[in-house]
């Protein structure tokens, strides 16, 4: 089985959550991902996201760093603390070495810069999905 088919299978098995307050980006992502048959939920801010995570299992989270309310790193830490098997991809329009390292140290799966090519982001999601499924199989973070 090639890597590609493995990933595509993985991505169809997962539940994805997009946390971003930028409505245009959210719409574009929603259109693309639903066309691919991916199960997707969206939320505007970290607190909403945490509520959603509490209510149902989520495998992969895509999270913008700069949102109203709680800052991205804090939110990431909360998610990884409570749901260590969930993989989080960080997205940011304000790249900084400091936040990049903080994000990775706090357990992010990847740290991506906006503007991001939609295809590239989908590839990252596929990899994260694969990892999330392995986490479930192995029962390890």
């Amino acid at each position, binding site marked *: 089985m090639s890597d590609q088919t493995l990933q595509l299978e993985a991505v169809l098995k997962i539940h994805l959550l997009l946390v971003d307050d930028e409505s245009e980006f959210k719409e574009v992502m929603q259109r693309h991902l639903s066309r691919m048959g991916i199960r997707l939920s969206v939320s505007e801010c970290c607190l909403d996201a945490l509520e959603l995570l509490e209510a149902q299992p989520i495998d992969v989270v895509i999270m913008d760093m700069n949102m109203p309310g709680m800052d991205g790193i804090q939110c990431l830490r909360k998610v990884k603390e409570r749901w260590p098997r969930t993989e989080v991809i960080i997205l940011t329009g304000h790249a900084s*070495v400091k936040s990049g*390292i903080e994000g990775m140290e706090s357990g992010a799966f*990847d740290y991506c810069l906006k503007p991001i090519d939609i295809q590239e982001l989908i590839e990252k999601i596929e990899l994260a999905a694969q990892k999330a499924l392995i986490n479930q199989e192995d029962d390890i973070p």
Partner: protein
Amino acid sequence: MTLLDRLLTLLRRLRRSATAPPSPGPEELHRQFIARSRSFRDLLTANANTLAAMAELETALRDGRTLSMTFIRARCTLVTVNVFKIIHHLNRMADGRYSELERAFSRLHRQIETILDGRRKPATGALILDLRQVGRAQADLTGEKMANLGEAGSIEGIRVPPGFVLTTAATGLFFQRNQLYPRINHIIQQMDIADLEDLHGKSGAIQELIRAAPMPPELETLLLDHFDRLAEARPGCRVAVRSSALGEDLGQASFAGLYHTELDVGRDTLLDACKAVLASKYTPRAISYRLAKGFRHEEIEMCIGVLTMVEATVSGICYTRSIGGRNDTLDLFCAPGTAKGIVDGTRATGHLLLERAPPHRIVRRLEAEEAIAPWLIDAEATTLAETGMRLEHHFGAPQDIEWSIDRDGRLYVLQSRPITAAALHAPVAAHPPPADDRLVLHGGVTGCGGAGCGAVCVVHGPEDMLRFPRRAVLVVRHPLPEWAPLLKRAAALVAETGSEAGHLATLSREFGLPALLALDRATELLADGDMVTVDATNRAVYRGRVEEALRRPVERTNPMDGSPLQRTLIEVLQLISPLNLTDPASPDFQAGRCRTLHDITRFCHEKSVIEMFEFGRRFRFAKGTAKRLRDTLPIEWWVVDLGGAFVPHYDLSRTDIDIADIACRPLQAIWAGMHGVPWEGPPVAGLRTMVAFLFHSALRDGLDPARTSALREKNYFLLSQKYCNLSARLGYHYAMIEAMLGDRPGDRYITFRFKGGAAGESQRVRRIELLAAVLDHFGYRIDRLGDALTARVERESEQVLLDRLKVLGYLVIHTRQLDLVMAEAGAERSYRDTFIQEIEDMLNHE
């Protein structure tokens, strides 16, 4: 490592060996193998991403493109995040045995952060300073221009106009009180700099914002008080309000004529004039100049000089070292009235050349045609030369001086600053223009040498700027500073008026743009769309493309040279890109010796490959052990399967394998290259070379020709279906090929490393040159350091990469021991031609 550390490590090891099962079962081993392969794959992806982002940073530094802080920060972040991942994956593969790397990494990323976040401290100090209180020590408060002028005024025998300076503390207060920076940043972030129309619109909005902002009351009072004091000494006086920005006169960047100067200002218009100068920091030309030269707008802090107007009869510019290229003379440019007409190129200008040494004899005098009597008498010219040399002596470098002489014959210095490096590289005409029928115009003065070719675009006003096509020849009546935003996209500049001393001429030299000025009737004789060649060095314009003119080498300058952003990039690259760990066999190849992120990347990559091999050995894992690959060449090849590298029907109990049983596409391509053209064996070397070779071998451990093992070492291929890593010690050199042909563009790349050899240094370097030339021909990106070479190609289609792998296969075999016959200079050239020919035949044949 302290004794305590050692004991702790020992204890940990003992505990591990006590708790871990002595030999894991086959299923557990398989699981571990899969997990390691996955980490290895992720490490390789992060490795490829790191190298790609590093290459982007290095290219940006070299090619002189417009740098932005956003770009630098984004690429540095990508590099750091990916190096973090590399270390993480290696430690997962190696059960945390390389945690020492984290220390080196942590130190490096902190240093990078500090450089990227480096900001100037906010200015504190007096809001307004009298010019007599100002010297070079106050430059941080008053800007270089006013600091230099204050300093000049303190030199005996030099007169400057009375005046005062609004300091950075004052202008900072104005911006802060009106919350201007957040609002300006908001507009700038939405600006499309490539779109000139957008640039003009947004620039207008920012300038309006500044002009409309009220002056803080305490500042307004101070300003008017200082004006009144000037008026006490000279009743009814008028002032000139000029910019003096911090970081403006850095020697490499002239900022010539970028900002507004308001002349003849009275008390009633003083506040508006000050705001107009501050607003001129955001004119389209200033914004695009800063972008082109790598300055952040917040970094340019603006101060304002308010100087009593000099009632000038004659004014001009003095370059204390001729910009025409002579070392023993100085230039004086002059025109009646104020100097404005000279610097914006609208005025006819007289030009005098004087000796730098006293008594400053006049070498040449070129009056403008309309001058009835000389604008500058000999005595005045000599006084100017004396003043200029005194300033040069005081400031320690050749100066660019603006001056005026008033009705009473008093000489005032209005500005003195170092001549920009670009200005001193003015060209000397070398070739008389060919007198053929292609010649359209001839004459004028060279603003910046060189030649350029393109379609004519005549620009009369701002509206024409918007339709200016890329690589067109910019033709204007006057070389006004307003046209500055077009210099970066133009192929050449032609103007009907102007001189070498004008702002646009200075800027064209900074950008290395061929510029021909004072070329009469240019806008009349050159029409929009005409294809022309401008030979600025030889002062001629031709119809069509004239190859003879374009072929002459021109030194292109990098407009980013010396800019703060370039300095930032150079500083961070020092921590990122130098590679110190080149030789895995060297005792220095250790985690603790990693001094850059590139070192860490290189170290981790090497160790990860070893980890994959070692896994098989340590756990005696049947599926991971090596199979000997059968070959007709007398070289030992061994292969290790990471997953999917062998065809399904291959019998795993065998100890050898045929190439037909290999399912790894990259290896098949390399193999095809190795066997595509028969190798005729090692080249025949002369006696002297052989003696040198034996001597050299005796000096180097492991290279003793008597020891067969050195020449018969096993060469390993680490394989999966899409991945291939070859580490080979072929005779006396070390070669590494790594290829990944994944589905994602980021997972498609080839890296080739080559180092060493048996011959002396110069011969080894010559072989590297040969390799570099051939690889360059086939589209590889090359990095060389002594006798080590790294070549990379990435993100190409699978077919392209397979062809490039064949090239490597050919080279690995055909360059064996070739260093031994590289004694003659030029030997590499004949080999290069043969190799390229044979490889091309091989690729075409297939």
